[in-house]
């Protein structure tokens, strides 16, 4: 993100207010590159966070895509250092909306005489191929730890799950996490502490 500061035109006028960074035509490409770089740095983790919350790949992809577009539309002119908490704030709102919609849809479908068939997964062995292949023993160990962690995370209250993933996976600090979650820093600390306690209680044997 600091790249943008160095690439921005020195002749651009600071006209915009409210923290917006105004751009001349010559610096738009630099901002696009910075945005691309930022989104590339968060997209996989964001997907993982959304997938953990929504437990569905397609929904997680939709949520991340919407968050990317919303950030680009509304906050691309904000200073780049503000993007990360804003992006995760948008993503969390999107996840919450989808969870609510899913709840309503589930109630409606439960009353219908037919059930929608599950969409067939497009089985593309090349596309679905994992990006790396660790040794089988190590892979098995990681698989076991991963499944245990995902199950434990799924059992956490939403806010604790959210704060744990933002702090541990994404590496947001307390202040950034508070912005992303729309709560106070004190709440972040409290949720995080409780999440750690709950996860350690469930995963203690595996992780110590």
């Amino acid at each position, binding site marked *: 993100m600091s790249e943008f500061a160095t690439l921005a035109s020195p002749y651009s006028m600071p006209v915009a207010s409210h923290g917006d960074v*105004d751009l001349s035509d010559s610096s738009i490409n630099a901002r*696009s590159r910075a945005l691309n770089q930022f989104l590339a740095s968060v997209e*996989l983790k964001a997907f993982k966070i959304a997938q953990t919350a929504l437990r569905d790949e397609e929904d997680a*992809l939709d949520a991340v895509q919407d968050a*990317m577009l919303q950030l680009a539309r509304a906050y691309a002119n904000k200073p780049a250092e503000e993007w990360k908490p804003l992006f995760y704030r948008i993503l969390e709102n999107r996840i919450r909306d989808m969870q609510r919609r899913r709840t309503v849809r589930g109630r409606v479908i439960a009353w219908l005489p037919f059930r929608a068939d599950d969409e067939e997964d497009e089985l593309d062995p090349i*596309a679905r191929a994992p*990006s790396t292949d660790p040794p089988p023993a190590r892979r098995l160990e990681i698989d076991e*730890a991963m499944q245990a962690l995902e199950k434990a995370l799924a059992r956490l209250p939403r806010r604790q799950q959210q704060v744990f993933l933002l702090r541990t996976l994404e590496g947001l600090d307390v202040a950034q996490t508070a912005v992303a979650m729309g709560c106070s820093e004190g709440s972040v600390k409290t949720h995080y502490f409780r999440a750690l306690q709950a996860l350690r209680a469930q*995963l203690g044997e595996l992780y110590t």
Partner: protein
Amino acid sequence: MSPNVEQPLEFERQARAVLEESVHRVDGRIRSRLNQARQAAVAEAARRRPAFWRSFSLMPAAGAVAAALLVTMVVWHRQPQGELPVIEGVHSTAEDLDLLADGEGIDLMEGWDGSFYEWAVEQTDVVNGETDG
């Protein structure tokens, strides 16, 4: 969080390692979809021009709106508000209008004979003089 600083740190380290590994394993299809979404977002941001330049592009529309408001204000203030103001000298004109609107008055005016009325007035004066005398 202070009582168990060491254990959470170790726990966090291991949890982070597992989570990062799970991120690393995201398959090619998901990566491709995310890449497409990212490109679309970047294109969207580039398509939307910054506020400074966008303000210039909106100036014609803003000018048209301002002009329309100005015309509206002018027309509004030129319209009579409530009762018409009373102006000196208009009183007699209004009475004349009432007379003209009266059909009987117009009938009299149509048969106007100036010499007859002058004679009638003289006769009246004469009669009055004889009566007084």
